[in-house]
């Protein structure tokens, strides 16, 4: 059939190993929290996913947690908050209620999960947050954060952009959803990244809401009013792919006339690079399973856990897209 299977086969790409960095501040050991020791094998672990698994990132993320849980023979409980913050709080409370002794949380938002963390604290359950950093206190409210540095991602996208354009050009930014701190960080990182390159100017920044068709529609408008756009920075792959469709329809050659750089590392975008119709993708690594369970295991053993564990993000560009294609999710 014409249906292209997008099933991610396994979560364990090579990028799953972490380049751990310990940031400022003391680490967190179990002794400091006074939490009881929990033997990982056979334990009940709760995972609260924030959004529906309809985008490749979430699919890969949940799958990674599930795979790793199976490896450690833990009893995994999974909930999905369906983008509803109040539901995520309820979800986490219900996970605790259902006997979860360890928690992995993919927060929907940086703020607002305090009541859930308080509930976990009351039951002395350590919480590992992944992919999005929350504003609560590490070690007291939650154990540690494992994830990418979104600002850094934006900076790396900027570097790719400077490299591809040679430092001159007019850039359109396709922003993520308004009010979302991923959007905020990726915008900040990118702008900081090109700050030292006066040849690159941002001529438009409009939200495509992380959505492919919105990205396409916005790009269609921008290419009409600013026909001299030479580069597009999309804050996720979906919008970037949408922009490619719009550029092609306007008679431009994406990747050549107009450079396209985005963040995520989905199969579709990386394939486009390999095919020569896309410039670069900065990966946002969704494979948190191994790191998350490792961390929980270490914590159980009483080892010191750093406040932030940064997962290593790969990069795809025209030089490596073909051979790294299988790493894309």
């Amino acid at each position, binding site marked *: 059939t014409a*249906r292209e299977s997008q099933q991610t086969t396994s979560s364990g790409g090579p990028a799953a190993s972490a380049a751990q960095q310990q940031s400022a501040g003391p680490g967190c050991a179990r002794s400091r929290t006074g939490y009881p020791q929990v033997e990982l094998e056979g334990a009940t672990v709760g995972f609260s996913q924030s959004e529906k698994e309809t985008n490749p990132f979430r699919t890969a993320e949940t799958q990674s947690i599930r795979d790793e849980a199976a490896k450690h023979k833990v009893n995994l409980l999974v909930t999905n908050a369906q983008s509803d913050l109040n539901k995520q709080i309820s979800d986490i409370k219900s996970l605790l209620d259902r006997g979860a002794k360890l928690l992995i949380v993919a927060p929907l938002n940086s703020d607002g999960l305090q009541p859930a963390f308080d509930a976990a604290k009351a039951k002395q359950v350590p919480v590992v947050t992944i992919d999005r950093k929350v504003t609560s206190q590490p070690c007291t409210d939650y154990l540690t954060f494992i994830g990418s540095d979104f600002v850094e991602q934006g900076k790396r996208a900027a570097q790719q952009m400077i490299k591809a354009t040679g430092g001159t050009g007019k850039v359109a930014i396709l922003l993520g959803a*308004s009010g979302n701190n991923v959007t905020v960080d990726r915008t900040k990182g990118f702008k900081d990244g090109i700050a030292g390159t006066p040849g690159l100017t941002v001529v438009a920044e*409009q939200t495509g809401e992380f959505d*492919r068709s919105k990205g396409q529609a916005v790009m269609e*408008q921008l290419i009409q*009013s600013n026909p001299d756009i030479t580069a597009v920075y999309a804050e996720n792959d979906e919008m970037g792919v*949408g922009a490619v469709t719009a550029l092609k329809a306007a008679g431009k050659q994406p990747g050549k006339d107009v450079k396209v750089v985005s963040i995520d590392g989905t199969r579709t975008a990386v394939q486009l690079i390999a095919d020569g119709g896309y410039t670069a993708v900065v990966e946002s690594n969704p494979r948190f399973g191994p790191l998350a369970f490792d961390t929980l295991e270490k914590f159980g053993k009483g080892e010191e856990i750093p406040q932030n564990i940064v997962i290593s993000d790969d990069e795809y560009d025209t030089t490596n897209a073909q051979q790294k294609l299988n790493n894309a999710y």
Partner: protein
Amino acid sequence: MTLPATKTDTKTATRTAARTRWLQDNGVYVAVVALLLFNAVFTSNFLTLGNFRTQLVQAAPVLIVALGMALVIGTEGVDLSVGAVMALAAAIIPLYLGAGPLLAILMALVAGLTAGAFNGFLVAKVGIQPIVATLALLVGGRGLALVIADGQLVQLHDPAFLALGTDDLLGLPISVLIAALLAIAIAGLTNRTTFGRQLVAIGDNRKAATLAGLPVNRVLVGVYTLCGVLAAISGVLATSRLGASDPADMGLLMELSAITAVVVGGTPLTGGKVRVLGTVFGVILMQLVRATLIKHNLPDSIAQMIQAAIIVAAVYVARERR
């Protein structure tokens, strides 16, 4: 208690009345012209063929949905499920695309028809309020689409199917042509056919229409079914344009865009009246507003507030006077 003598000149009064009435009927056209003029002057590269083409292509799917919505609103109903139906159509396309685009499109339309008929059944036969009846499908329909698609976006490669969204016919993009033809067909349907007049009568006074022996249930089921099919057509076209089946985002909030366009076009939500040309211009107006805001690179916050103001202004002008 005495009211002072107000011997107004009735002639001027009549003339003012006539002028407000004219504006009330034609406000949306005036607004479109005004916005075009504004852009011609203040927006760079606006007066190009390519730009108009873009606007039309983007407006076409909304228009197709809005046409169905206008009919439903004419019966004093509303269909909140159109976006979900678009998602269903999108989810179904890749399942059958292997057997040829025609079958795939047909199956998508069948899904729209089924969904619409189901809505119609709930509204007409079970007697549930349209908002609630279609809300159920709004909530569940997209979920169903995601279940069908296994929650995945699927890239499409069938060239014949993709041509629907990218190619021209008679110098016009195919989707625009289809939208135009559908608009003409719906205009004929409302004004020239028994079905159309019965629809409006039902919207105006359902009890009286029932007692007049009109086939109320049949018309209602027909209207919702038509709306479902139109939403599915729109879903098919949008999918082909996107080059991917994306049930998670396809048609998101389309119900609100369509309702806004219909109402801004002068069709009252109280039923009993359908303005097809007004709906076409309502869609164009909202499209132009969005385009203008993007082209002037306004931040999302300002853009949303301006859209709100324009909706209120347009509906204010077109409102029925007491």
